[in-house]
């Protein structure tokens, strides 16, 4: 049988063959929760009668959602996760060192090519950027992994997404994944895996690949995977916290279907309220007025995202009616952005720079919207009430588009707000 990347990884972690549709018990390489999902996982873990996690070096709690704790209730919740991690000798990083889980764990070499990764957060699929089968679950499923080191998984059928052509500097991974969502919809890959490939992917920077893998779940997918190429192996090789074995699909693997895109024909895209698949080219969205811009999250808080926003805002001012909130996803990103002078660009432009947190993405804190307000956000979901009032509106877009909109005060195509020269820098890695 010719295997896709997802089924090949499952087969490598199971005594079963990884045939599509089969339910397999798989060994898990790494399993983590955040400040919201850890507390219920701890309760389930105790109810299971479990005493010790399967391997404390492969289990982690990362406080990133409501942190630095926004109120007493969130502080109590975060504390329960921390106490459990300390009791078990698990990996735990405090605020000031931790970052948004899906950006931080790959940086620290805990998510590696060929791995099976289970996280109690739906955007765990971000790890697919490194060629891992990374999938989100709820707290009780995670507790079971902590207890057993295994989980059950149905071998998914795979949608292959092929890119040809060459990428203009202003075209980002965000535009690419939004365009896919616009075509296949929010259940276009339900229960399936996405496998990204084609010559157009070879030059795509890792940060953009993380953005694409991150939003696989918005297509309903279990995972979104990239094949471990030289870029991925170099990144993982220098950061790996343990040994790893990259896994590849078989030549001629059978895909459920194939979606093809030409990068030359793509445009900056936006998902309009209230669904991530309500996607149009930015120039066809009618330039609605906005009140806030958010640049950050596990989708777009990496260095290349922050650089894109900084290059757009350099020497410019945020529109007087707009709040522009920038949140680097990790301290590595934060410090690099500081060294490169990006943070100064933001504050001089009149933007806010916050400490790493999921914060406003899920309507937690650091930028909640009032009724009637509209925000252009680089995050992943624009459901009703996601960033605050159920009467607010969210538009999802790339960091270029978000920064361009911050300047004009309206949803704006980056090509209409900046000199073409800015984008030359982003044509290459």
């Amino acid at each position, binding site marked *: 049988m010719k295997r896709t990347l997802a089924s090949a990884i499952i087969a490598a972690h199971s005594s079963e063959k990884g045939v599509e549709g089969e*339910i397999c018990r798989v060994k898990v390489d790494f399993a983590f929760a955040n400040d*919201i*999902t850890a*507390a*219920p996982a701890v*309760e*389930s873990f105790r*109810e*299971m*009668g*479990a005493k010790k996690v399967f391997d404390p070096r492969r289990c982690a709690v990362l406080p990133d*959602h*409501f942190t630095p704790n926004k*109120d007493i*209730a*969130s502080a*109590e*919740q975060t504390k329960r996760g921390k106490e459990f991690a300390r009791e078990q000798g698990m990996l735990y990083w405090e605020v000031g060192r931790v970052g948004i889980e899906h950006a931080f764990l790959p940086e620290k070499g805990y998510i590696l090519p060929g791995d099976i990764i289970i996280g*109690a*957060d*739906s955007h*765990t699929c971000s790890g697919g950027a490194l060629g891992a089968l990374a999938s*989100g*679950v*709820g*707290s*009780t*499923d995670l*507790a*079971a992994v902590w*207890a*057993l080191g295994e989980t*059950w998984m*149905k071998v998914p059928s795979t949608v292959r997404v092929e890119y040809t052509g060459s990428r203009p500097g202003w075209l980002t991974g965000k535009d690419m994944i939004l365009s896919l969502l616009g075509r296949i919809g*929010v*259940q276009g890959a*339900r*229960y399936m895996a996405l496998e990204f490939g084609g010559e157009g992917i070879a030059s795509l920077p890792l940060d953009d690949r993380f953005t694409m893998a991150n939003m696989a779940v918005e297509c*309903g997918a*279990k995972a979104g995977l990239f094949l471990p190429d030289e870029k991925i192996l170099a990144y993982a090789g220098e950061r790996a916290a343990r040994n790893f074995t990259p896994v590849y699909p078989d030549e001629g693997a059978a895909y459920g279907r194939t979606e093809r895109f030409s990068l030359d024909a793509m445009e900056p895209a936006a998902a309009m309220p209230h*669904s991530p698949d309500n996607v149009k080219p930015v120039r066809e969205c009618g330039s609605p007025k906005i009140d806030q811009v958010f640049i950050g999250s596990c989708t777009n808080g990496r260095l290349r995202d922050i650089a894109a926003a900084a290059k757009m805002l350099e020497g410019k001012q945020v529109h007087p009616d707009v709040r522009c909130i920038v949140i680097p996803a990790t301290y590595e990103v934060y410090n690099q952005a500081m060294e490169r002078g990006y943070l100064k660009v933001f504050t001089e432009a009149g933007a806010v720079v916050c400490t790493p947190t999921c914060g406003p993405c*899920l*309507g*937690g804190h650091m930028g909640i919207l009032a009724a009637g307000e509209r925000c252009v956000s680089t995050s992943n*979901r624009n*459901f*009703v*009430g*996601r960033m605050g009032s*159920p009467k607010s509106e969210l538009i999802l877009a790339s960091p270029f588009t978000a920064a361009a909109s911050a300047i004009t005060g309206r949803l704006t195509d980056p090509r209409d707000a900046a000199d073409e020269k800015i984008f030359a820098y982003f044509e290459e890695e």
Partner: protein
Amino acid sequence: MAGSYEGTVWKFGDHIDTDVIIPARYLVSSDEKELGKHCMEDIDRDFVSKVSPGDIIVGGENFGCGSSREHAPLAIKGAGCSCVIAASFARIFFRNSINVGLPIFECPEGAASFETGDVGRVDPAAGTIENVTKGLTFTIVPFSPFLQRLIALGGLIPWVREELEARRKGA
């Protein structure tokens, strides 16, 4: 799983996401009753005051998409609903519901037949859903044998407990 479920139906559309089932601002608790007080409030502010114990939520395609929050099926239980019927369920919500003991039933034709206010009846053993108001009966898409075993055992927690017990004895 309990015998059967009968209650008034509350009908929702396609792609009901976990952010509207239970908004993130309430995720500072994982208590079922506490979460239940805010179930569906961003899509229907009065839902919690209208719903009665045993009522049934009916959704369209991809029910429970979005966040992995297990708080979503807990909130539905906490609001007093007996079960959810939908044309299809999002992957993580599906697993979470089985894990926390919220009965869910996939039945595209049955889901389409209901309107808010209809009376629904589910007989899991017979594998049928009845739209009592309209006098229609539908067949539930059956769970895989693996899931049937998991549900019969009482969900994931007893399953892991048994597994750990077996490992201890084997060791």
